[in-house]
């Protein structure tokens, strides 16, 4: 579709761009006391953008801007997820960044990047989208300019990010050289029909995996995770663990079903590899490594933020595990898990953020006896922890069941078994938080008074975690409807 005709299908992104520019200009005229308006406006802007994206849900799948981007339900699902996670993060960070208007504008720019990332259909757009999300994330991680930990986190994030995106771009240049196309659909056609050297393709695949693996924090590209998660401000950590990761998974799936594989016999549910490069086996090994390393490193962490960082690696492992089977069951399971993960992870991080000043820190030590000081928050935290472990009847359990079912159905029994064993290991460190909160303490501490805002936010996040554990069919229906991948120019 030509450029001018495409603009009508690009309204959410255009709206976001206009909102970003307007907010930058408005910010210049505001006094210090009025800066919190920007926060509310950015939440509203991302909500409207998500709604505009939802409006496109019923449109027929097509490619826009001469094959640069696609408009399909798969991309729209991740756009809505991105907008939703930005709204929640704005409310999580409202207290800390009330006077830092730039923070909220930068969040909106990342949202714009996350809107483009799942919809890419060209090597050029992949690189641009990755850089929009990446560059702004570095700034967000270092937004506390005078905090040593924050700037250190930003520098580490930036160095790993820059190198892995560079390697990924080199891999894409090799793919371009092997096929002579930058359009993903053309690449797929050339790879599926022509005689492309499988060794060269394997090397390119590994190089691209470095960039994608970095974005979703997969072993062996995970080294930045613990330090960045601990050093960055808590709201930013929460955002990085959900928003850009979801967009990264969307990009990973898009990469797998176009460059690595093509749909077998037309629009079937399964995909076969374009060139035989042992991709499923490789992904299976990386998935097992990812979850094992994440879970075992989390075992003896004292800082809960750092522990959640390692546990985030483990959760990436579970999701990557489902990718080995290359079919729509697996993609649906990952999308469902992403929704569940959004609620439980944001919940845990919100409690960390809002209690850190009252408890004096984010170590497990500080949470001792919380159950007797603020039972509502402690019970909610326990719900989030058990849900992250994957215990029934919570949402995390259902998410994991779908992931494991997709893998078992295709006969990867050992892989699923290793995943279940890993979940058992994860129980130890999640329970250690719950144990600290509810074991009787020698010294009685005064009860904590929390604001109404804190309670409402906890409720908003804990209710879906509980409800999705017993009644999840509408959500799984929504995700199943969303797996419409468009192939074409």
């Amino acid at each position, binding site marked *: 579709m030509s450029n001018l005709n495409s603009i009508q299908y690009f309204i959410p992104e255009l709206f976001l761009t206009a909102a970003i520019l307007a907010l*930058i200009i408005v910010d*210049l005229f505001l006094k210090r006391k009025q800066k919190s308006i920007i926060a509310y406006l950015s939440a509203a802007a991302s909500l409207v953008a998500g709604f505009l994206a939802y409006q496109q849900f019923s449109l027929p799948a097509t490619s826009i801007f001469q094959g640069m981007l696609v408009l399909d339900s798969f991309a729209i699902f991740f756009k809505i997820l991105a907008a939703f996670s930005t709204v929640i993060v704005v409310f999580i960070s409202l207290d800390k960044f009330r006077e830092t208007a730039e923070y909220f504008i930068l969040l909106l720019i990342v949202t714009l990047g996350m809107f483009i990332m799942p919809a890419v259909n060209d090597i050029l757009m992949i690189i641009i989208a990755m850089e929009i999300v990446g560059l702004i994330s570095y700034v967000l991680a270092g937004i506390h300019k005078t905090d040593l930990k924050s700037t250190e986190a930003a520098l580490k994030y930036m160095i790993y990010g820059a190198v892995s995106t560079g390697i990924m771009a080199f891999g894409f240049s090799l793919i371009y050289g092997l096929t002579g196309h930058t359009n993903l659909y053309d690449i797929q056609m050339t790879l599926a029909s022509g005689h492309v050297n499988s060794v060269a393709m394997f090397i390119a695949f590994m190089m691209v995996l470095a960039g994608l693996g970095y974005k979703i924090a997969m072993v062996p590209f995970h080294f930045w995770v613990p330090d960045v998660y601990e050093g960055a401000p808590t709201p930013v950590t929460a955002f990085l663990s959900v928003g850009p990761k979801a967009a990264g998974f969307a990009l990973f799936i898009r990469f797998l079903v176009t460059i690595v594989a093509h749909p077998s016999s037309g629009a079937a549910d399964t995909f076969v590899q374009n060139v035989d490069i042992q991709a499923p086996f490789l992904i299976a090994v990386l998935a097992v490594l990812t979850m094992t390393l994440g879970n075992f490193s989390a075992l003896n962490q004292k800082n809960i933020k750092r522990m959640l960082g390692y546990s985030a690696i483990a959760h990436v492992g579970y999701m990557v595990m489902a990718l080995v089977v290359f079919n729509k069951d697996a993609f649906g399971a990952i999308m469902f898990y992403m929704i569940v993960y959004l609620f439980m992870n944001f919940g845990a991080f919100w409690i960390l953020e809002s209690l850190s000043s009252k408890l004096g820190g984010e170590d497990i030590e500080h949470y001792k006896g919380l159950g007797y000081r603020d039972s509502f928050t402690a019970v909610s935290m326990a719900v989030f922890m058990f849900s992250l472990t994957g215990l029934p009847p919570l949402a995390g359990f259902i998410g994991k069941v779908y992931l494991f079912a997709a893998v078992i159905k295709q006969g990867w029994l050992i892989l699923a078994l290793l995943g279940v064993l890993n979940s058992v290991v994860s129980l130890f460190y999640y329970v250690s938080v719950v144990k600290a909160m509810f074991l009787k303490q020698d010294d009685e501490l005064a009860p904590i008074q929390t604001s109404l805002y804190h309670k409402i936010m906890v409720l908003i996040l804990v209710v879906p975690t509980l409800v999705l554990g017993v009644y999840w069919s509408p959500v799984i229906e929504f995700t199943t409807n969303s797996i419409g991948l468009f192939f074409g120019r």
Partner: protein
Amino acid sequence: MIGFYTVLLFILTGAFLVSFTVALSRFLAPTKDYPEKHIPYECGELPQGEAWIQFNNRFYIVALIFLIFDVEVIFMYPWAVVFNDMGLLAFIEMFIFIFILLVGLAYVWVKGDLDWIKPKPRLEHLAKAKGE
């Protein structure tokens, strides 16, 4: 390829002439070595401090801003190539692009990063880190 032999001849002649004159002056000129000859400025000015000095931070900030606005010009070359074919549409597109850049410039201006003399120098962190 024949044309390149001329170039080769030029290179050889040039190399020979330069090395010949340098060697000639080496043989003919008297050599007297005294310590002042090793000072960077031979006109009698003694160098103060080291050559590796640290520049003021403001140079970096101005250089960063310059870098961004300088590199964006690269987009105008392909635009200029197709301008004739696309006409008014390309004109409007470039104005939108420049407007977005101008918003960035306005931001930098209002936040005071273009002022050479900052109202509030933030030197207290540096002093703390150096342990003073």
